[in-house]
């Protein structure tokens, strides 16, 4: 039996926009370039490649799956690709779902962020592998069992790690300097491993398609299916497996449609499938197809890149080392803060494309065009990247200070939330008066300002826990924030236990404010923190809340407590842009661990 093991790699990074030093501390969005035409506009690039490659090629793959029963293949799809597809091409996710549901398309394991974490931090590497596995499980309902590392980087240590982790197989480059006289067409066993199997890329036959297909100076141009099949059959004399590994973007993006690459591919599948001596295998099936022929050792790292097959395009100069050291140095602080957006940004900055854009080795090769980069120069890539690291450090400091402030205030001043009662009448009305004086809306008071001083009437309505709304009744709890040291009312918080349609759209579960004369002391964080504790008592897992985009202090507070932004919309009543946040309560409360200890 002769087998084609076709595996294609799908990846898009989040490129850092032109992020100058004056944005540091003001703009924490590194990814969304406002300039549509910029080389760093991720949305535009994704949509362009989707049009040229992802959609047309996936359509052909699906057609082949339907037409040819024996056709099978494997894909590695990074997490950053999936996120972008979810945002900018959800139909691509749907197609991938149909393909995996066919049972003839295998998804390969790798780091979620297409990172070089293996070479910097083993625990982080494992976390990203698991994150990727979870994402694949979540979207496609399948388990990944064969590993490929970023840029097909591989060494004995990686193989041993994968073996211990329980992977069935692992992929690497079939590089002559390692193989010597041996053929890449067999299943091998990585040195020192018990169970895992190694599949090696047949780089000649892979590159005939991926690099040379459209090269008119190539003596074999134009490559016909007849000729290629002949080569494949000759190659199988040296072993049954033809491992064709390549970038998915080969089809349509790197090699354009007008070269006939799509027709070539379809015809190749048809011709190979027609012969009963031939078949297609997924990577797992290939691993199962035979016992290892021999042991192979790669003590140093081998990749599928450049003529050197090493990592010098990523880790070849001191800028690249400094940048990666910079990002991994932040690990401890980032993970301790447990802030979802910070963690996500930190991991997106680990994507290997960032150091790749800083590569200078082609200056001496004179082969400048072999390296694609959205930046004018490697130095620009480095400038913008280092500025994001500056901003990350600033955010970390700010978040750490926030947490410290909460702990401090809870410890030294002691606050609690109190259910409104009659004895607070004069103070409560005075507080409402203060809001009025400062022309500041009293938010979170359940409309006390509308009762014209009739505190009792307001209270009665509070005791009912009901509040008449336009159409529906809303059950809500209102609390005053009280400072123990001088028994002073500081603010209020209103927690809605159920939401009507309107509040789902605008408002959310929680609204709150601090009286004007007590602002700027970090009390809003305490207010929200204690409010979240109440929410937990009420049985909430998560809460949704809105904040006006212009109210920077307020949304920073929410983010400091682990709020994730889930949307942005125009608020018709307030005539401005509002941000919608979601907070996972358990996570928020546990990340401020110190605060909790002190409180109890």
């Amino acid at each position, binding site marked *: 039996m002769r087998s084609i093991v076709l595996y294609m790699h799908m990846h898009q990074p989040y490129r850092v926009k*032109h992020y*100058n*030093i*004056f944005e540091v501390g003001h703009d924490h969005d590194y990814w969304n370039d406002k300039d549509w035409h910029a080389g760093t506009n991720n949305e535009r690039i994704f949509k362009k490649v989707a049009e040229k490659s992802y959609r047309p090629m996936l359509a052909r793959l699906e057609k082949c799956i339907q037409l040819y029963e024996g056709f099978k293949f494997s894909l590695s799809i990074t997490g950053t690709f999936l996120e972008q597809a979810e945002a900018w091409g959800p139909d691509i996710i749907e197609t991938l779902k149909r393909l995996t549901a066919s049972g003839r398309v295998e998804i390969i394991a790798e780091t979620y962020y297409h990172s070089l974490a293996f070479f910097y931090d083993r625990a982080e590497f494992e976390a990203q592998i698991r994150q990727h596995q979870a994402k694949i499980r979540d979207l496609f309902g399948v388990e990944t069992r064969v590993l490929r590392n970023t840029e097909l980087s591989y060494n004995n240590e990686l193989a041993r790690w994968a073996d211990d982790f329980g992977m069935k197989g692992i992929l690497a480059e079939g590089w002559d300097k390692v193989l010597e006289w041996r053929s890449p067409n067999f299943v091998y066993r990585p040195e020192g491993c018990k169970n895992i199997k190694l599949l090696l890329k047949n780089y000649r036959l892979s590159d005939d398609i991926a690099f040379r297909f459209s090269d008119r100076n190539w003596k074999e141009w134009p490559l016909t299916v007849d000729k290629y099949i002949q080569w494949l059959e000759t190659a199988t004399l040296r072993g049954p497996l033809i491992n064709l590994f390549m970038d998915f973007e080969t089809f349509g993006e790197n090699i354009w449609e007008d070269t006939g690459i799509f027709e070539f591919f379809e015809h190749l599948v048809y011709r190979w499938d027609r012969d009963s001596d031939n078949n297609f295998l997924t990577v797992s099936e290939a691993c199962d197809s035979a016992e290892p022929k021999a042991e192979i050792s790669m003590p140093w790292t081998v990749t599928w890149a450049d003529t050197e097959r090493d990592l010098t395009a990523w880790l070849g*100069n*001191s*800028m690249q*080392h*400094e*940048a990666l050291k910079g990002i991994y140095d932040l690990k401890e602080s980032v993970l301790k803060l447990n802030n979802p957006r910070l963690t996500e940004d930190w991991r997106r900055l680990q994507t290997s494309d960032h150091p790749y854009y800083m590569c*200078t080795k082609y*200056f*001496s090769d004179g082969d*400048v065009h072999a390296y694609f980069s959205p930046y*004018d*120069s*490697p*130095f*620009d890539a*480095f*400038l913008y990247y*280092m*500025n994001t690291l500056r901003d990350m450090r600033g955010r970390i400091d700010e978040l750490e200070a926030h947490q410290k402030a909460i702990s401090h205030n809870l410890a030294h001043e002691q606050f609690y939330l109190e259910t409104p009662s009659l004895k607070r009448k004069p103070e409560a009305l005075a507080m409402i008066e203060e809001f009025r004086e400062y022309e500041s809306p009293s938010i979170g008071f359940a409309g006390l300002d509308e009762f014209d001083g009739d505190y009792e009437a307001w209270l009665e309505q509070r005791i009912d826990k009901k509040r008449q709304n336009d159409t529906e009744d809303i059950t809500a709890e209102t609390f005053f924030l009280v400072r123990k040291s001088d028994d002073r009312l500081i603010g209020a918080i209103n927690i809605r236990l159920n939401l009507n349609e309107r509040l789902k759209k605008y408002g959310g579960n929680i609204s709150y404010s601090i009286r004007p004369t007590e602002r700027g002391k970090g009390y809003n964080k305490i207010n929200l923190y204690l409010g979240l504790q109440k929410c937990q008592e009420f049985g909430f897992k998560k809460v949704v809340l809105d904040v006006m985009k212009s109210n920077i202090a307020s949304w920073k507070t929410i983010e400091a407590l682990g709020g994730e932004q889930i949307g942005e919309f125009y608020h018709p009543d307030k005539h401005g842009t509002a941000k919608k946040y979601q907070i996972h309560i358990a996570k928020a409360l546990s990340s401020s661990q110190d605060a909790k200890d002190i409180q109890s």
Partner: protein
Amino acid sequence: MKILMLGWELPPHNSGGLGVACLNLSKSLAKLGADIDFVVPYEAEHHFDYMRVLSATRIDPLFRYGGSAYDNKGLEEKRFRVAREDRLYSIRDLQRDYCQFVKQYLMDYKPDVIHAHDWLTYEAGILAKKLYGIPLIAHVHATEFDRGGANGGNPLIHQIEYEGLVWADKIIAVSQATKNILIERYKLPADKIDVAHNAFEMPDDEVDYRYDGSSYQYLENLKKQGYTIVSTVGRFTLQKGLYHLMRAAARAIMIHPKMIFMFAGDGEQREQLVKMSAELGISQNVIFTGFIRGKQLRDIYSISDIFVMSSVSEPFGLTALEAAHHGNALVITKQSGVGEILHSIVKYDFWDEDKLASALVNIAESPALGYTLRDGIRREYTRISWDDVARKCIQIYDEVRRHKRNRF
């Protein structure tokens, strides 16, 4: 091959890069067998064994203080004193004498090619072409559009420049940027213009130069305290974009206070620049050296860590290569010709103060970035050679001579 070079200055009697470029080009051409007579508009002792220097007038080279190749105002009005004569000269007077001399020369000698450098000598070149049909190469080191900046330049110079370029059989531009200006502004056909970038050659008197750290002890001390020295060298004119540099300096210092900016040179914007540095509150961090040359200038290059070329329009920008030679990291505007042939530099648009400041802060703070830039540029600038430029010129000479033979 007999070449008549028409120039305006040669080192050490030069006011800028024009003289340096002319000298190095002639030297390399001579190596390839060219027989060169080089005309200058003044009288001075020049001892070059590879070419003859001919003086068109008997005036003293000191005239450059009033008649430099870069002055484009008061061609008739601005007069300067000349040794050995009572007469006061203007640039136009000098040019007339220069033409007269060339005319006289051509009565006795008939060179194969005339190679004229910048508008100052174009009239003499046209004359030779008109009288004897000798092929004319016009070498453009700068255009009046560069010198004039937004003011548009001097109409008379524009006219002379344009005529010279139209009469020329072939034009050599020192960068693609300059070629583009000639095509866009003078509507010259693109195939008439070849680009030959300048190169860097260590000056003869530089062989013995060693930086001894004595000139700027104050700066040495600051460097020991962790300061980064940023320098720029050139005439303080609109063309050089120095206001942008000053504002970017203020922004960079805001983030990274340990930075000193050296403005080496002089010019019409000097007072305004001094005032600006005070208004921006960074006078402490800005040093004006005045016009310097020789060892003093080299010491500036040596002590400086980063060299900025902030030009709004720079046909080439030889100072950048000099700075690279002395180990500077280069930050250069996209509007400077020298950037076309270098990779290991940070490029920015002359108006993009944010990016310039970003680059300065990052180079100051990141050893890796500084190292990669310095290490990379050191490999690059040495690869650019005047011999390559000379070979290109010889090709062009052959081409125009062939063309001439076909025509007559």
